[in-house]
């Protein structure tokens, strides 16, 4: 019940907003904020009631929505350790994003505050749905619905090239989603249900062998399982985005209003990485093992490429956008390490990235509100003009570049440790990925120096107003989380440990062993070893 309540609270808020009009801007703002806070509190209750030692789905609620002789669709919601953290991330980021929009000048300029906040709540609903729904069909609906409000947020309240960016965002994601839709329909119709858990669910059927996705026929690459895997993976990879599918991201980030960027970086991109853990690993373990090295290579290219390109940017927002590509490369690497350490590191890094990069976008937004430019060269010496802002920014920048003791390090370290000990990856992958740690320092400190250090010599920067209470209220929770996760990540690892362990033991390790055996057999028969031959990564 609690899950449903968390999921639908934003909808309740949205309904109330419908009965207001644009002139009541204050009521609209505070109602929205109140509902996002209520959702957050609700999700905290969810966390409090969650039994971390139990790997199974918890607080399940279900009823049948569509039932036919050949398939059924259920409203089936629940959380496990992995999805709970992302629910918490969503409900944590949303109030901050809403609060940061209160005085946003784009809303004054373009008007329609009511519509803006309606979209915010709609977005929260859709994102929460993606994380808690356990039925592929309903999941797909939420996945698609989440596009709509973001499309309008960018398209209406975005920057100068907002239309191009909004359409690009929509089309890219949509293109991937269609492949996923086909894969979902295939899986659902074959299993006779779209629901994953439960006694008759897809997972149980896979476990019992009632259905299976053949992996070795005709070849591994063109087998049913691999194609299904790719159907899901490409949709997720565009969303993340995995290099080289990232070219929509800089546009969307740069053009989106501050809150849009925060949500996009903070939560929306995680729908992709979460989907990889939830669907790719769980439904197609053999294909995951098979593709892991190739995907890891893409992830590592993304880590290095994103960082490198980020360094050359002159637009602060674009710089942060490219840094996202680098950071999410780490997440993907962790997930496809296919061991418990890597998956947990990846999941924690999803949260970390939401907090750090979300924080960076919030900070950039505050500066933008004051100066109406994002050009690195327009700043310099800002620390002197706004000392508190400078200090907070330093903390967030350090968290983003992975200073030990702050959150980013915990995630990156765990991911790299996992990929090092991974049975499918290993030291060489980790070696190249760790170079990203050096590069992160290079581009982040470059940005920090350009904006904050040096002489305060530009007239227009001299009298920037200090942070107001609202801005401090927005950023302080971020800073608190940065330290909390950095110093005591056990709070979070504890939540997901048994879930990740279960996933690894029941699905992945079996697959790794199976593939090992078949490789041995193949080698013994003198056949070409497909694992090696077809893996681009080596």
């Amino acid at each position, binding site marked *: 019940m609690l899950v449903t309540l968390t999921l639908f609270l934003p909808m309740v808020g949205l309904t109330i907003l419908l009965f207001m009009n644009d002139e009541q801007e204050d009521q609209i703002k505070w109602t929205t904020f109140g509902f996002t806070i209520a959702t957050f509190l609700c999700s905290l209750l969810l966390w409090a009631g969650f039994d971390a030692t139990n790997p199974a789905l918890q607080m399940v609620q279900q009823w049948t929505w569509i039932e036919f002789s050949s398939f059924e669709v259920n409203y089936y919601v629940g959380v496990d350790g992995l999805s709970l953290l992302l629910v918490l991330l969503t409900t944590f980021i949303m109030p901050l994003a809403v609060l940061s929009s209160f005085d946003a000048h784009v809303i004054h300029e373009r008007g329609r505050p009511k519509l803006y906040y309606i979209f915010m709540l709609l977005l929260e609903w859709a994102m929460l749905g993606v994380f808690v729904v356990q039925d592929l069909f309903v999941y797909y609906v939420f996945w698609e619905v989440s596009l*709509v409000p973001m499309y309008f947020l960018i398209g209406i309240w975005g920057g100068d090239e907002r239309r191009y960016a909004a359409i690009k965002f929509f089309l890219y994601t949509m293109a991937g989603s269609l492949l996923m839709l086909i894969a979902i329909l295939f899986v659902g119709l074959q299993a006779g249900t779209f629901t994953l858990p439960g006694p008759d669910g897809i997972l149980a059927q896979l476990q019992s062998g009632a259905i299976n996705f053949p992996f070795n026929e005709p070849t591994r690459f063109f087998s049913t399982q691999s194609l299904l895997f790719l159907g899901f993976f490409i949709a997720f990879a565009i969303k993340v985005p995995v290099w080289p599918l990232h070219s929509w991201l800089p546009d969307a980030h740069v053009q989106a209003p501050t809150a849009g960027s925060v949500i996009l970086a903070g939560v929306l991109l995680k729908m992709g990485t979460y989907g990889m853990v939830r669907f790719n690993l769980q439904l197609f373990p053999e294909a995951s093992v098979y593709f892991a090295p190739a995907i890891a290579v893409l992830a590592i290219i993304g880590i290095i490429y994103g960082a490198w390109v980020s360094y050359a940017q002159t637009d602060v927002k674009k710089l942060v956008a490219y840094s996202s590509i680098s950071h999410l490369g780490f997440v993907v690497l962790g997930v496809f390490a296919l061991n418990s350490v890597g998956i947990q590191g990846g999941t924690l890094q999803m949260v970390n990235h939401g907090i750090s990069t979300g924080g960076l976008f919030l900070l950039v937004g505050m500066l933008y509100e004051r100066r109406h430019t994002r050009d690195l060269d327009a700043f310099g010496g800002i620390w002197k003009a706004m000392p508190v802002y400078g200090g907070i920014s330093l903390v967030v920048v350090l968290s983003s570049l992975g200073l030990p003791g702050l959150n980013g390090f915990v995630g990156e370290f765990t991911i790299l440790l996992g990929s090092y000990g991974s049975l499918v990856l290993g030291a060489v992958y980790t070696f190249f990925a760790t170079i990203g740690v050096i590069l992160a320092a290079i581009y982040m400190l470059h940005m920090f120096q350009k904006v904050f250090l040096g002489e305060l010599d530009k007239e227009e920067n001299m009298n920037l107003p200090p942070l107001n209470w609202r801005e401090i209220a927005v950023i302080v929770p971020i800073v608190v989380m940065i330290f909390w996760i950095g110093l005591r990540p056990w709070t979070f690892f504890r939540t997901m440990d048994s879930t990740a362990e279960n996933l690894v033991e029941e699905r992945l390790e079996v697959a790794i062993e199976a593939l090992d055996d078949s490789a041995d057999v193949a080698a013994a028969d003198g056949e070409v070893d497909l694992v090696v031959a077809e893996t681009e990564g080596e």
Partner: protein
Amino acid sequence: MSQIVPLIILIPALGSFINIFWGSRLEEKQSALIAIFASTGAFIIALLLYFNLLATNYQEAIINPFFFDSWLRIPSGGVEIPWQMRVDTLSVTMMLVITGVGTLIHVYAVGYMHGDERFSRFFAYLNLFLAFMLVLVTGNNLLMLFVGWEGVGLASYLLIGFWFDKAKGEGYRNANAARKAFIANRVGDFGLLMAIFLTFWTFGTLDFFKPGEIVNPDVQTGAAWSDHHGDAYGEDDGHGAEEGDHTEGEASLGATFVLTSNAYAEEVEDDHGDDHATDPAIAAAPVFPDNSHLTMEQMGAFGQAERMIAEQEESGEAIMVQFGPFEFRFGVVITIITLFMLLGATGKSAQIPLFVWLPDAMAGPTPVSALIHAATMVTAGVYMMVRANTFFHFAEVTSFIVAIIGVITALVAGFIAIGQWDIKRVLAYSTVSQLGFMVAAVGIGAYVPAMFHLVTHAFFKALLFLGSGSVIHGVEHGHHHVHDHGHDDHHDDHGHEEAFDAQDMRNMGGLAGKMPITFVTYIIGTLALAGIFPLAGFWSKDEILADAWLVGIGGGGFLHSLSGYIALVGLLIAAGFTAFYMWRQIELVFFGEPRSEAAEHAPESTAWITIPLMVLAFFVITLGAMNTPWGHRFATWLEYSARHAHAGQFQILLAIIALSVGIGGIYLARVIYGDKKGYDAERDLDALQKTPAAPAWHAANQRLWWDDVYFAVFINPFIAAGKFLADVVDWRFLHDDFHNLLTAGFQRAGGMLATPVDRGVIDGSVLGLGRFAQWAGDRMRRPQNGFVRSYGVWLLSGAILVVIFLLIPLFQNGG
């Protein structure tokens, strides 16, 4: 006793916290007092720990702080990395140096930073540095060491760039120096991270030693005191189920003598009352002579390595270590680990190839240079390698490379120092060179001399830096004096003021009489650095050379022996450089005639500055006594925490040679630079430039073009490639051309669609929806009070329509 250990970190952290948040509201005196109290508090704790070690016969302790017990903990992955502290002779040595020198420098900084507008912030950063440095040396696992390692890097970054807002681009250059330091260190950190990963997957733990382990069975008879508790890492609640995971820890307590403070005991009792009952029994448990009763899981990385090495030697067969699909010989693994560690050390301890950041780091205020970039932080690499002496002792190839890197660094930096004009840069290169001595010492297995030199160097180099700060301060004052009194009404003189460089030795000269205390203490520091009997530097440098000699003739393997000879010869030459460039500096700064009006009017510094100088000078004179041929007290002390530490032997002949090299260097410098002919102001020439050695001096002056090469080979290509990737590959190709290619056909075909999407969806549909909504709203106004006037509701209906549309084929299919 043990529960005061975490305070050594907490107190400076608290001091930093107060000054960061309330500093702007405090007066200078208050800020300084808070910081000095914090630093002194940490020093007192270090002293207490020192006496405690003496009283307990060097029994080390492992402490789980009461504030954070677990850190990285992933039970299903076997990861268990706690916040855990280690007090043993090695870490206490470092603590004493850090807090002792640190406190003196805090006092000094009160005088030095007086009047700075961010005075309190400076002290906040100094305290922050202390806190991180103490994390580095007290951590009982590699990852905590890494936290301190990067943390001090942050403090260093903040302090090098402390004057980031100076005018005329100087602030930006300071920030550049800070960034350079951080990034060069990050390259080293990359190595350390790789070493950490490899260590973890080889040994399953990052702990140095686990409770109950005996570090050095050769000297230790008893067991460690510790309050490690079997389940102390765990959360207080909610993981009773995992109790089983910790039973090994419980078992290891068999050899542990537990000293538990009352507060902690109560806490333990609350949480695990039943476990606590066993503690008294543990105290009376039998004492084991070595670690043979422990399983591998009960030992830290070093203990496991020792056992594996012993097994390997016994059986004659190489042990294989499994990494996923790969298998390596244990010896290879250790070599790789140590090589990566070495990369880390070259970053933090400024060795070739990463030493370039340290000279630039002199952009920071002088107390920072003294504390961080001479006495403490830069020695972290040496500390780490001594801590890991088990690995290095076993890894012969790495040790050889370590020795070579140390020797080359000592030579190169010593050479470059000869050609510098900036008083602090000379000292900076000198520091690099002396760190080379320490690293070379580690490379030849002379861990005690390395640490000994680390300690003495901390004192005399801090003394020299503080002395140079006093000189700079004096010259600046003299300059202001001249400026205020001589040129009161010349406003255009500002340009002149900017151009004046108070750190340039060309502007000095003849300061001996004007700053007597500074002069005398500086001479003491110089003689110590040059290794003149009987100052501290003589004893520590001589120990390194003596060990090098012994290693050379000892014949413990070809590489080992070779590294001994190379170290001996190379370091002797470097010692000659040292004496030479230091005496050159003395001549240029203190002797001769003042070469500027500023130097003419330089006053002696205040007591805040001179008292720390005198205290340091006292230690520089006396500190050598702690490890002389007549009593290797320091060696005995260190043996309890470093398995392969051993006392050196005094070689009277070598001592005489080394001493004559030092005196020879000084004499040569005296001949060349003495009698006011050190610097030819008219032609801007160094005395060496008038000798046949002029090209060599030029090369030293240009720092061997090291930075230029790095710019040409690494940095500029990196920037250019970044621009190319960003502008051409990512933007013009991927973002524009490729995207257009993808969408071109699509757009042409969907031209009809595109316009409605472009114009329609955003403007049209919203406006249209609006119009529709208005119309609908009008109709619905009566029943709903006119509030339904939203686009959202229509949007929602749209979404639902989409869903239904999607469902249609399925209905058909199903039906």
